[in-house]
């Protein structure tokens, strides 16, 4: 199972003065079970890209294949695609509308025309996955705290049992603890349910800690597409497009520039810590 983008182009307001080439010749293959980070500054085309993946936006040029089928075929079922490629928008809690949590989570699966029992089952399961207890399901979603609302909103997409889950900045506006909770949730969904996850984020630190593959976008083009470690070696190029590598990458690189024999690969605190300790032991600062 995979998503393939073949020479995808998207142009906003084509033929007018406001014409903007939002996606330029995107070629991409997303394999089953991957955990991908997608970064780029505001206006780099990342939001446009993810909306193409579930057919909300239609490419001006090029093809997208989901599991080998062209999603722009006239007889392709776009509604089914949207259930398979779940998209969680930024501030998803702003889309809650029902009178109770459970009803809101049921909205997605019931739109799929499933039998009532199956809808119930999925809704309960999704709420359990995001850690909303059964004692809360009849509350109004408007009575919850910000972090809880967001988890309910994510459950609303999970209840559709997507094979691919795309999250657009799921941690925006949360405090550090809330951020970690959401990221751990996403990570466990990936590990335990074998869902393909695409995480759109501004935070390099978050991305470095979690994802296996990192796609960097700039001006509607894919700039880098590689393991996070490899991408962060281009930290100077990243800076030029208004992004940055994690702070520890800078520490390691600066040490190296100062003539210390360290490996510049670490991107997380744990890795960096290990590497510096190794260096310190070798230098004899720290006794083994």
């Amino acid at each position, binding site marked *: 199972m995979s998503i393939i983008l073949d020479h995808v182009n998207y142009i906003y307001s084509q033929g007018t003065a406001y014409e903007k080439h939002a996606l330029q010749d995107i070629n991409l293959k997303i394999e089953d079970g991957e955990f991908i980070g997608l970064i780029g500054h505001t206006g780099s085309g990342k939001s446009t890209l993810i909306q193409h993946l*579930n057919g909300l936006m239609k490419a001006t040029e090029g093809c997208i294949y989901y599991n080998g089928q062209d999603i722009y075929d006239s007889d392709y079922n776009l509604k089914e695609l949207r259930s398979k490629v779940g998209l969680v928008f930024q501030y998803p809690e702003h889309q809650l509308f029902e009178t109770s949590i459970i009803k809101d989570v049921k*909205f997605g699966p019931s*739109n799929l025309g499933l039998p009532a029992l199956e809808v119930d089952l999925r809704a309960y399961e999704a709420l359990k996955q995001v850690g909303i207890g059964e004692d809360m399901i009849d509350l109004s979603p408007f009575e919850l705290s910000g972090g809880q609302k967001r988890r309910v909103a994510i459950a609303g*997409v999970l209840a559709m049992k997507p094979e691919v889950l795309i999250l657009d900045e799921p941690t925006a506006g949360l405090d550090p603890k809330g951020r970690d909770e959401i990221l751990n949730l996403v990570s466990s969904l990936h590990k335990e349910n074998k869902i393909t996850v695409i995480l759109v984020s501004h935070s390099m630190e978050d991305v470095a800690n979690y994802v296996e593959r990192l796609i960097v976008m700039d001006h509607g083009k894919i700039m880098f597409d590689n393991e996070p470690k490899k991408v962060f070696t281009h930290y100077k190029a990243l800076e030029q497009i208004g992004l940055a590598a994690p702070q520890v990458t800078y520490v390691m690189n600066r040490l190296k520039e100062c003539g210390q024999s360290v490996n510049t690969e670490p991107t997380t605190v744990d890795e960096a810590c290990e590497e510096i300790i190794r260096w310190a032991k070798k230098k004899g600062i720290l006794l083994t």
Partner: protein
Amino acid sequence: HRLDPRVKLLGTLIYIISLFAFHNIASYLIAGLFLAVIIHLSKVPFSYIVKGLKPILFLLLFTVMFNLFLTPGQEFVRVGFIKITLEGIKTAGFMAVRLIFLIIGSSLMTFTTTPNHLTDGLEKGMGPLRKIHVPVHEIAMMMSIALRFIPILLEETDKIMKAQSARGADFETGGLIKKAKSLIPLLVPLFVSAFRRANDLAMAMEARCYRGGEGRTKMKPLAYKKRDWIAYLCFIVYWTLLILAAKIN
């Protein structure tokens, strides 16, 4: 273009009234001439104005037809049981011209005035109404806030629609009731957002010492300039000409 919005508002109003007050060939000629001069002065490209007429083309045709065929009076031509009367032609002609003038006149104002200016003009223009306790300042402030939030909420509408579509919502198909129901997932979040924004904004306004229209000064006070008085003069001349034309008739 750079006229005081009050002049433009009042001018348009005078013009519209004049169209209804006088209807004879001479006055319509004057009205047409007047309009042509203004279009020229305003430098709005003619194609723009024609474009503005497009949506009412059908309506115009419809009106003309109705008046053409259904006005009783002296028979002019007869094809089968359809007859066209002289009066019919006359009324239809008047109707069409009046409608076209009306629409060009009012769209000219909207082309040359931003809604913000209009709001300012309204606030000042209705100033005298304050004496009879019409909350003029509040109305103008409300309009200006509404204008500011229309694009924001419009964007939000688009976002919510997309988000709900991603959850399988369908806004396109179905009958009236199904369509109405499908709007709930859109409208409730939109309302919630609007109320949240209203709350925030009211707080922000008070934090910036807003306390109603009393004791406020204006950053951009409207002041009549020479060209505004000239414009008023033009309207007076126009109106006098119309009266004269009516007398002669």
